[in-house]
């Protein structure tokens, strides 16, 4: 039996925890440490904390915050946003993060993936791939929190990241972000089937069945979500929650 991970992805801005739709219109959700404590008490499988304005504001990751999370978290967590160098990663990992997630910096300097996996081992290096569509309908990779389109095909870029030493891919569909109507299953499957490393799928989860579907039909190794774990009901009332049920799938061997 395998237990695919169910992973809350918490988005941080300077003023706290936020969540938006299509990477925009972010609504204040609460205090991040409070959310970490709640998720801790709910025995979550893993957490991701992404600072969504660090890169655009040219800030470095907040080490103090990561240390406080590490003190609280009895589960693994990954950190992303504003990471530019191996030295940045070193500080985050020493502060207690298991994983570092890079997006913009990986696209601008793919060799950073190789350098990072040489130093920390590939299991600590997550490449975050945000996918949107151009007006022609072609899937492309986006950087800078979904604000800049780059001329990279998501499947080809993921394969390159694997080859360079990425340990996991955090794959987010910008179009599905925040809408809670299911994952972009075709995208997830296309990427998952093209690489050997685990895919953490994100964007679109609205109910438990969506998490199951992205693992079984989308071939993702883990199901991540934002809104599902911080909002409740049609009016998006803030409620930090996590399913009591576990995902489980029999081993295919």
């Amino acid at each position, binding site marked *: *039996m*395998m*237990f*695919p*991970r169910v992973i809350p992805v918490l988005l941080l801005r300077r003023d706290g925890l936020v969540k938006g739709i299509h990477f925009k219109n972010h609504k204040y959700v609460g205090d991040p440490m409070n959310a970490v404590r709640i998720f801790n008490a709910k*025995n979550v*499988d*893993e957490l991701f904390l992404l600072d969504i304005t660090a890169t655009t504001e040219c800030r470095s990751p907040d080490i103090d915050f990561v*240390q406080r999370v*590490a*003190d609280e*978290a*009895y*589960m*693994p967590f990954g950190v992303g946003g504003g990471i530019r160098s191996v030295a940045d990663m070193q500080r985050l*990992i*020493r*502060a*207690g*993060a*298991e994983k570092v997630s890079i997006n913009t910096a990986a696209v601008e300097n793919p060799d950073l993936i190789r350098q990072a996996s*040489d*130093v*920390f*081992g*590939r*299991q*600590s290096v997550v490449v975050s791939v945000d996918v949107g569509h151009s007006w022609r309908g072609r899937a492309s990779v986006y950087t800078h929190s979904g604000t800049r389109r780059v001329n990279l095909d998501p499947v080809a870029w993921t394969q390159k990241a694997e080859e360079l030493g990425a*340990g*996991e891919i955090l794959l987010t569909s910008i179009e599905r972000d925040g809408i809670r109507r299911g994952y972009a299953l075709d995208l997830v499957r296309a990427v998952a089937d093209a690489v*050997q*490393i*685990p895919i953490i799928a994100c964007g679109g989860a609205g109910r438990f069945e969506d998490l199951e579907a992205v693992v079984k039909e989308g071939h993702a*190794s*883990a199901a991540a979500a934002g809104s599902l774990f911080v909002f409740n009901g049609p009016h998006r009332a803030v409620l930090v929650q996590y399913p009591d049920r576990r995902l489980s799938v029999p*081993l*295919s*061997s």
Partner: protein
Amino acid sequence: MNTVIVDYGMGNLRSIQHKLKRIGVEAVVSSSSWDVENADLLIFPGVGHFAKGMHNLKEYGLLDVLHWKVKEAKMPVLGICLGMQLFTRRSEEGDVDGLGWIDAETRRFCFAPGIGLKIPHVGWNLLNPRRLSPILEGVRSDQRFYFVHSYHVVCNSPDDVLTTTEYGYRFVSSVHRGNIFGVQFHPEKSHEEGMTVIRNFFDMFQARQGKS
């Protein structure tokens, strides 16, 4: 009791120190051979590349004192993840020799084509005990632990195997030989179940204050 968390530049030590404090263990994070020399118990964590880990141990001048304390003076040591793998004779990761405290090798996961299993093995999985040990006291077979690794330990002597875990095939998820303990999973990241294992390790050597 003097507990030292060995810092050889391979990640994630402060959070372990903090978690030990919560169960009544005051541990020092150190890369000094003097501290290791004076330790009563050693926590040997580690995330990252095997060859880099061995290189750092050499660079930091820790090899001799570690061999002396663990092999000769029989100081209890708990290796976590890469820490446990370094106890083996050799690893495929970088193709270098390890500390050789456990008669074992570290090998990469290798699956038949088409099996569809991802590498690294990342996520929560179960432990199947192969023998009884106080370090597993209170751990149930339905409790899950957090793993993240591409390489695993292959023991030459079945007596050293404490638990196995299933991922494509059965691999060794913890070892025990005399004063030497190793776990492939991350107990410090495995909620209450993981802390039980850590507590057990310290209780075996009466090294906790204010038991909780």
